């Protein structure tokens, strides 16, 4: 009976994901057009202009999607390691053949086109992580396997960092969510949260305040905690570790970070109170953020309309068609349009998560988690940065930002999962 209702193998695609993907890509292109057009637009495929190139990239993407879906689902699992090594090779090759743009040696120049292998490394790493974790031999709760898994993601991350593309490196932190889902001990989560809180408090409120607060919390847990009371020496060592870490953060911030990185963090935490310095910063490192916030703010409830954004048309926001594309949405489509984009992303991410949980094979589930985590980190950092909630980290908004490599990388990342998902009923 069931066999009769079954659709042809490989065509049971999750259309909700696909529609969300198409909506994002289409709306993204409309905004790239706004952000990059000059005067009357006569030819939507004008190859001199970013919107024209992006139109071509999108068309080529369709071919890429068909190719991705056409390949047998088992291929991705079997060849995960090979894909990963090829990807690592392509990253290493950059040190020899790479082209430098904006200080980052992240591109291969092929003919008139440039290709950014770090965008493809994301899905390759995801495949490798999924493959390794889903291996029957692997037990993620053991330190040995934890170190091995971390090595899988740290190698490409370091290669990318060495190319001076710190933004893309940060994305690899996304895999933490995957490990946690697959059984990483809760203590790592607690340590992670504590590290973040300690860093923020140490920078924002100073070491003395942070130490007192840490002492209060640690001793509070020691004496009033529900669990079995630990030894006092343990509690004290934890406290000393916290205080030491706070000093470390302060030292890292003041002596290791470059000035522009320091400024970004100081800005994010609102550490600078001198109005003179702030005004100067608005002209320099704050300039992008300031202009992008003004553009978003000027959109109001319903925006100024397609191609009517004065700041967008005047190209007041630098890099608007790439990393700052969301400010165009804010200005021309207002609160309604921008909130819609946020909702579309949340819908896509939760849909992928939901599908991942449905997977029968661990490989597919882990891979789905990787997809959701990577897309989420991009979404959070990019939109957060454009609105001044997150320190400036230059990474693109998936499916939205201009750029062929980015679009293709994310498309392959997502559609491998769509393919895996379409195959889940045949998994065993």
């Amino acid at each position, binding site marked *: 009976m069931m066999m009769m209702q079954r659709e042809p193998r490989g065509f049971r695609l999750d259309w909700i994901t696909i529609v969300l993907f198409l909506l994002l890509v289409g709306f993204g292109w409309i905004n790239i057009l706004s952000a990059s057009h*000059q*005067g009357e637009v006569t030819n939507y495929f004008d190859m001199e202009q970013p919107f024209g190139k992006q139109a071509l990239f999108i068309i080529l993407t369709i071919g890429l999607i068909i190719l991705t879906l056409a390949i047998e689902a088992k291929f991705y699992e079997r060849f995960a390691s090979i894909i990963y090594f090829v990807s690592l090779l392509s990253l290493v090759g950059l040190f020899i053949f790479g082209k430098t743009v904006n200080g980052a040696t992240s591109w291969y120049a092929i003919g008139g086109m440039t290709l950014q292998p770090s965008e493809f490394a994301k899905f390759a790493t995801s495949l490798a992580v999924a493959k390794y974790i889903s291996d029957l031999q692997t037990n993620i709760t053991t330190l040995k396997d934890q170190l091995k898994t971390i090595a899988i993601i740290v190698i490409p991350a370091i290669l990318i960092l060495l190319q001076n593309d710190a933004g893309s490196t940060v994305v690899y932190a996304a895999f933490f*969510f995957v490990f*946690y*889902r697959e*059984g990483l001990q809760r203590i790592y*989560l607690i340590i992670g949260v504590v590290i973040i809180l300690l860093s923020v408090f140490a920078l924002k409120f100073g070491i003395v305040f942070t130490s007192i607060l840490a002492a209060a919390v640690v001793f509070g847990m020691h004496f009033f905690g529900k669990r079995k009371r630990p030894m006092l020496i343990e509690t004290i060592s934890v406290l000393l570790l916290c205080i030491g870490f706070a000093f470390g953060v302060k030292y890292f911030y003041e002596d290791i970070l470059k000035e522009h990185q320091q400024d970004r963090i100081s800005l994010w935490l609102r550490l600078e109170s001198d109005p003179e310095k702030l005004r100067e910063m608005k002209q320099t490192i704050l300039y992008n953020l300031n202009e992008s*916030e003004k553009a*978003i*703010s*000027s*959109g*109001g*409830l319903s925006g*100024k309309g397609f191609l*009517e954004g*004065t*700041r967008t*048309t*005047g*190209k*007041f926001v630098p890099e608007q068609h790439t990393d700052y594309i969301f400010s165009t949405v*804010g200005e021309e489509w*207002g*609160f309604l349009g*921008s*909130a819609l984009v*946020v*909702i579309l*992303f*949340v819908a896509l*991410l*939760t849909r992928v*998560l939901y599908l991942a*949980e449905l997977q029968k094979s661990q490989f597919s589930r882990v891979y789905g*988690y990787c997809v*959701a*985590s990577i897309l*989420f980190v991009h*979404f*959070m950092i990019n*939109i*957060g940065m454009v*609105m001044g*909630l997150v320190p400036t980290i230059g990474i693109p908004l998936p499916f939205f930002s201009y750029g062929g490599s980015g679009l293709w990388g994310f498309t392959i990342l997502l559609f491998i999962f769509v393919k895996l998902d379409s195959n889940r009923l045949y998994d065993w």
Partner: protein
Amino acid sequence: MRKLLLFSIITTVGLIFIARLFYLQIYKPDVYNLYEDNAIRKVYDYPKRGYIYDRHGALLVANQPSYDVMVIPREVKPLDTLEFCSLLKITKQDFLNIYNKAYTYSPRLPSVFIPQLSRNDFAMLQEKIRKFEGFYIQKRSLRDYQRSIGANVLGDIGEVNDYLIQKYPYYKMGDLIGKQGVEQTYEEVLRGVKGIKFIQKDRFNRDIGLYKEGIYDTLPQSGRDITITIDATLQEYGELLMKHKRGGIVAIEPATGEILAMISAPTYDPNLLVGRQRSVNFTKLYNDTIAKPLYDRGLQAMYPPGSPFKIINALIGLQEGVVTTEDRFSCNHGYSYGGRKMGCHSHPSPLAMNGGIYNSCNAYFANVYRRIIDKTKDPGRGMDIWSDHVKSFGLGNYLNNDLSVGQPGKIPNSATYDRLYGDNRWGSTYNLSNAIGQGEVLTTPIQLANMAAIIGNRGYYYTPHIIKKIQGGEIDSTFTTRINTTIDKKHFEPIVQGMFDVYNHGTAAMVQIPGIEICGKTGTAENFIKIDGVKTQLTDHSIFVAFAPKDNPTIAIAVFVENGYWGSRFAGRIASLMIEKYVKGEITRTDMETWILTHGLESEYAKPHSGQPFTINKGATIDIIPLEKENKDYEIKTTNNLGLKPESTEEL
């Protein structure tokens, strides 16, 4: 639990983003304002400024085009500098200096390269400008004064300052605004409303087209013309008569309150304050703190009025019933009181009111004044009654008219003396000088002219004003509302007769005009300045007020000439000539005209600044000015009292 971590983080981040969007786009932003958007260039389209005509329709102020050569440094291509410089009459070094300055200001934005080309240079350059890329010509509109008269009346226009921009948001940096005279008071009528274009620009400030195809743009509304009450011929004649003297003339049409002429001497050519040399010339005028050409003596000079004020005391005496026209008072070369004496000149004695007026007897008016103040036992009350009567003549306060400047003058009341001497510790002898218009009384020439108009009208006036007609508009109703004094009409006839007799056989007998019945009153005012901190008396001011004809007067006038000595010497002559010019249109007393044109007071004015000891009044000096041969008009047009000449427009 583990399944929900990422899910809940994603949802939380989504909600935070939407909250942030709400804060940025709906909660925080002040309503999106096109004017404050720095991505939009606002280009203003300035309408034609309204013309100004005199009461007979003669054009006084029009507009003239002026041409600025503009440059956008980045767009300049290598050019034939030799040819370009010779067209603009500059040197190559000048060219480089200006170009570098413009480049420093902004390579992408237009700067003024040469402002206000002469018409000839413009014609030459216009043919060739297309050869010089990056340069273009921009037209501007300047004021064009058709006749070099009435600088104080017409005023001028100049760029708004920061204070005005803050106060009136209509004005933007570089806008022009009326600065003095009717240009200032009728600014809103004359200027019209500027149009605006919103132009989208990019981050390099380059224009990239009209914003939203210009749906928010507005067209300019052109300025409206005005007709002022000034009689240009009379104004010009008055300015001619006042040459080489300092002082003011104000002439009013009593039946309407229209100001026929308003002269302040020394004056200047209004064309000095037009165009490139405006600030240089304005500074020169402004810095002349001795002759003070920017000070309108007809409106701003407050002096003790002297004898003309006696007329008001006579009217108050009659109104209060403390004196009749037949009461006689004796005068023994003055009026003695409390061991002091107010002096008087030789004349028959005793005198009734008529003789008291035309002989200007101090003793007569001292008696009248004391009777007014001492009418009741309380001098304070008498003083306040007197003060209220005087103020009903428009004295002691601003006239609230449409002139850009003015002074209130001063009329004392009981409070004034209570402050000086203590409550009720004074009497009429403490301020007897008020009887003869000295004391604490201060008036401006326009107030005196208005007083003459009131007497000519027998008891009422219209607020003196300068606007006659506004194109497509009404003049302010306060100028057409009759204001009555507190004196009954019947008391005016004996006074008018007394003023008429001033001309018949009184202090102004020598300035009679055959065929016109003029009523007038001479005045002299003592005045003092401080020289090195020492109060020093100068030669008296010569004052004259008059109206004519005696019945249904068409002109009322007040003339005052600084340090002119006695009333009829300068002021009386000038008032008579002005009246004849206005009433008859021609001058029959050419002897008097010649005397005025050939006599000046410049060396008298130089005395206090010479540092040398000098004599006054009987020791006054007078300059003899050689009469230029029948070309007075030429004289007016080519020089001015400051000896400034318009500078060449070719100069940078």
